[in-house]
């Protein structure tokens, strides 16, 4: 009878450790599901200006700069030339810049893209699904996602040309 005692103890302690570790782990490492630096970038499925559905998986193996913006937000408008310039510069090295418009309709987005003269792909998050899964609250917010699909850094607020260059450089050559 006593022979199974030790293995039973070990199994039970192991299960407690596993479940307890999970419970404590989620409370320590922010179980709110929002991506943080180093965590995996959530996928999205959004309609692009080209009329097709786009996902993050399309750019597997490539560094992605994911910029959330709205036409009504001043800093978003101001940072667009910097994004466009860096898009041009890093395009050759496989860096993708994706603009995610938050909650506006097609006409507004099209006019905006024309007006600020940007050429990188733009998707429309009309239902604010990506906003939710990325936990974006103020605009603009930019996620720098490395080639492994992990969030390298998060920039809240207006991007500047030089810092943007440094941050993309880090993505390409970590």
């Amino acid at each position, binding site marked *: 009878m006593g022979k199974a005692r030790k293995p039973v103890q070990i199994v039970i*302690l192991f299960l407690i450790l596993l*479940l307890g570790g*999970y419970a*404590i782990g989620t*409370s320590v490492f922010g179980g709110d599901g929002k991506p943080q630096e180093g965590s995996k970038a959530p996928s999205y499925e*959004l309609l692009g200006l080209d009329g097709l*559905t786009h996902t993050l998986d399309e750019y597997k193996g490539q560094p992605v700069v994911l910029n959330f913006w*709205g036409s009504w937000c001043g800093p978003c408008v101001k940072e667009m030339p910097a994004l466009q310039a860096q898009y041009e510069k890093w395009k050759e090295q496989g860096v993708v810049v994706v603009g995610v418009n938050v909650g506006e*309709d097609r006409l507004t987005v099209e006019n905006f893209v024309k007006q600020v003269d940007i050429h990188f792909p733009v998707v*429309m998050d009309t239902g604010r699904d990506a906003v939710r899964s990325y936990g974006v609250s103020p605009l603009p917010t930019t996620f720098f996602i490395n080639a492994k699909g992990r969030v390298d850094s998060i920039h809240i607020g207006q991007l500047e040309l030089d810092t943007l260059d440094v941050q993309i450089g880090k993505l390409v050559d970590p």
Partner: protein
Amino acid sequence: MTPREPLVSNTKCDCGHQNPVGTVLCEACGKPQDEKELGAEGNLEMRYDGVARRSQRIRQGVIDRIWNFFSSVKIAVYLIVITLLGSMLGTIFPQESTFLNIDASTYYKEMYGTAGNIYYRLGLSHTYESWWFITLLVMIGASLVICSLDRVLPLYKALTRQKVRKHRQFLTRQKVVLVSPLEADPEAWVAALSEPLKKRGYRVKTEGSALLAEKHRFSRWGPYVIHIGLIIFLLAVLARGLPGLNMDQHLAFPQGEAARIPETTYYLKNEQFTVEFYSDEEMPEEFRGKKVLPKLYETQAVLYECTADCTDPAREPVLAEVARHDIRVNSPLSYKGLKAYQFDYDLTPVLRSVQPELVNSLTGEAYGKFKLDMRNPERTFQTGPYTLSLKEKYMDFGLNEEGRPVSKSPYPNAPAFLFLITGPGLPGEGQQYFYFPKQVDKEQFQQQAINERLGGSGRFLELEVQDMSDVDFAASTSYLNIRIDRAMPFVWTGAGIVMLGLVLGFYWQHRRIWLRVEDRELVLGGHTNKNWFGFRREIAAVLNKVDLIVDEKSLDNGGGLA
């Protein structure tokens, strides 16, 4: 026994039974195993029937130490007390989770001053999600499991392998004892006593002149059933953190639109929101004219489930109605674990579409209406001989620092549209026309002046809304609290099992009677876990049936229990 294990040989009882280390009373005959205890007087320690707990053995290794730590009831009590004290900390100020939209880093300082700031900095604003609180709960859970296992298995073994003939001292040191001369034939007398005992629900085992009668043993499992229930309860609460098992969000539903509930395949449409207030006549005297008291909040809601094209943003989802309910306070819409509660409302109308008519302001001629949606409008409209193409759209019209028109927010607070109109009597490249659907914006932003600047003074076309029936707006917005809690059935199951365990343990008592007749003497001992008074009375009544008259009070062998 091998000589390498000298400790083991020490635990062998006189009756020949080999007991584990830590045994208080011999598992077989019930003789006290400790020499000091054997010579002592008074009642025996009957907890767990005197068997050794699993963890009571010679100290070994780390695993045994951890096991022993959690198997201690003393530690469990400390853990529970610490958890209670910790919970109290969480009630000093409101928890972060009770607010919808606050910046916790400044809220506590502004609201409660320095104390609030310290409270926030210590992380007490989310006490129940903090690592130390969860750790305490996990430790209580571990203690529950290990305490139970450590006791229930040996106890089960002890109770299923009970010997009928017990050591004399085991009998005379119970709390219910009778020693009485008996002239009758021992075996016949014992057999005769079995009948009235069986009638009272006892299971009777005899072994020559010795007898063991027992009933309601199952009530001994009550505490362990409670523990199983508590463990299920704790696991269910823990499982709420898993994705998809728990959702709690507050969403806005403008009247007349089916809005998607994020993270689900459901859409909910607020067909009509009603808010009613008590009239002055209905209110008590002291409230009249001073207070506005709501009488009814009601959202006539329809729940749809998406059946196809749900995730593809390029297509319109296909919706099928699955539930319909008039949501009121405390009367949520409920469908397959999803619940929608009335939470808040906003009576500001939100413009959805207008149907303006193009008219010639000189001749008064009207060219027909077209529908202009605020969101995703069509790009070109044909009215009579004129083509209007939509060039720009501003949801919340304003001017930026450089004086250029911009939208100040994505909400249709002050919508404005810029059209290019082409047709007879207009310049070849067309004429630009700014249109503000809301009258208040028309005046504030001077639609007339803008258009005259754009199209010159020879303008003759105007967009006009003729009738309020051409204006479509959401009269109000209802805010609903959408909740899904799939762990709740498990929480209830756990709670139900706890209740069952309580009933088992509280409403029945495990009663046992041992007796032996030897040398014309009856020695009887009895044990129960509560209601000793009833137990003694039962024994007296049973003995009475075989013509042995004893006073029930004389059975009391001390021990301080009634």
